[in-house]
């Protein structure tokens, strides 16, 4: 891939194919931890960190372990194990090396193992047949897209919380889903910027 293609991939993975608003990966934390801006940013930062590391590890696992052994069909099993082990390892390392960062990101790490965004990006990289550079760029772009979308969402939810105009049965999650739908319409406007 040329440099221009990598830049285009980066931009399109943030805006055009936003991981939350157009690919629907990682919706559980998007709905679950988006009621406060600060928490949402913490979660987003943890996701960026883990997705980039996990993409590197799963790319290496796939290309240097599964392909030479002709065990490609075991990718689901091996990816989830690699991700689970990685998350545990990152948690331990952060606790030891950087307690301040651990305090702000650590609480989100256990949640991330079963976050479909992490496994989703790893599988996407594999399906698209990306090289290492492209896989990392795609991972970084997708996870920054996650951070962007969840921060915007939390900003909006902080404002609509406690609004008496919302009917009782729509409070909380249903309203958040409708808000996400409107954000998704706005993000569709980016479709034209590439190609």
């Amino acid at each position, binding site marked *: 891939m040329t440099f221009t293609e990598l830049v285009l991939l980066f931009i399109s993975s943030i805006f055009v194919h936003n991981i939350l608003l157009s690919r629907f990966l990682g919706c559980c934390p998007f709905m*679950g931890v988006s009621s406060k801006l600060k928490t949402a940013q913490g979660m987003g930062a943890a996701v960026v960190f883990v997705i980039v590391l996990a993409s590197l590890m799963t790319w290496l696992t796939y290309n240097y372990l599964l392909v030479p052994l002709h065990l490609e069909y075991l990718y689901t099993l091996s990816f989830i194990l690699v991700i689970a082990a990685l998350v545990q390892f990152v948690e331990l390392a952060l606790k030891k090396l950087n307690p301040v960062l651990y305090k702000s990101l650590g609480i989100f790490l256990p949640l991330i193992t079963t976050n479909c965004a992490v496994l989703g990006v790893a599988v996407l990289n594999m399906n698209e047949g990306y090289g290492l550079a492209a896989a990392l760029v795609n991972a970084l772009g997708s996870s920054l897209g996650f951070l962007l979308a969840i921060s915007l969402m939390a900003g909006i939810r902080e404002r609509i919380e406690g609004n008496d105009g919302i009917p009782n049965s729509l409070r909380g*999650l249903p309203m958040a889903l409708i808000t996400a739908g409107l954000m998704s319409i706005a993000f569709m406007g980016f479709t034209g910027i590439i190609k």
Partner: protein
Amino acid sequence: MSQSKFRIITNGILTDNPTFVQCIGLCPTLAVTTSVANGLGMGIAATFVLIASNMVISLLRKMVPDEVRIPIFIVVIAGFVTVIEFLMKGFAPELNKSLGIFIPLIVVNCIILARAEAFASKNGVFESALDGIGMGLGFTIALTFLGSIREIFGGGTWLGMPVISFEPAMLIVLAPGGFIILGCCMGAFRAIQARFRGIGATPAEAKTGCGCCAMAKFCNRDKDECEEAKA
């Protein structure tokens, strides 16, 4: 079948419906309900994995040490997901293609891990299978229902048959439609629930933060910090 066994099944379909009541497994729900066939296919695939993994985990429950149970559950689930992937590639290649990466992502579907942890690891094989059937049916019904709405109003067809005469709204099949239709359906479901409980009763407040997460029950690490961050 005794009353209590029957209740395990209805529990998954109505009382604890994974999509509308527990609000878990949102990603596949939003992504694959663009048509009835996709919704139904995803529901059946997840049901298969749910029943099989529930039964195996229930068989293993006395042998698995408590500390490593989550990784073991995930391996069992991933094994069955690989099996269903093979089956779909062989027997339903079209469906496999349109569901795409959401088939391998059944592994991280919170419904399956949550049932393994909350039910199968504490109950017998037969009850766990019934729970799998109930939860799977609840999920399948919800996906088929959402798929029907989106296909009828967004594409003008139902299972490929043309049903409406007016111009369908494309937006409903696209990504934003997924969020908006699910939000509206969830709201309607709650309004109906509130009506049954008696007029004036407030519907159950949506769970957010840790309460929304399927891992909440067994994510015992740093729970205080987590609550603190949430508040």
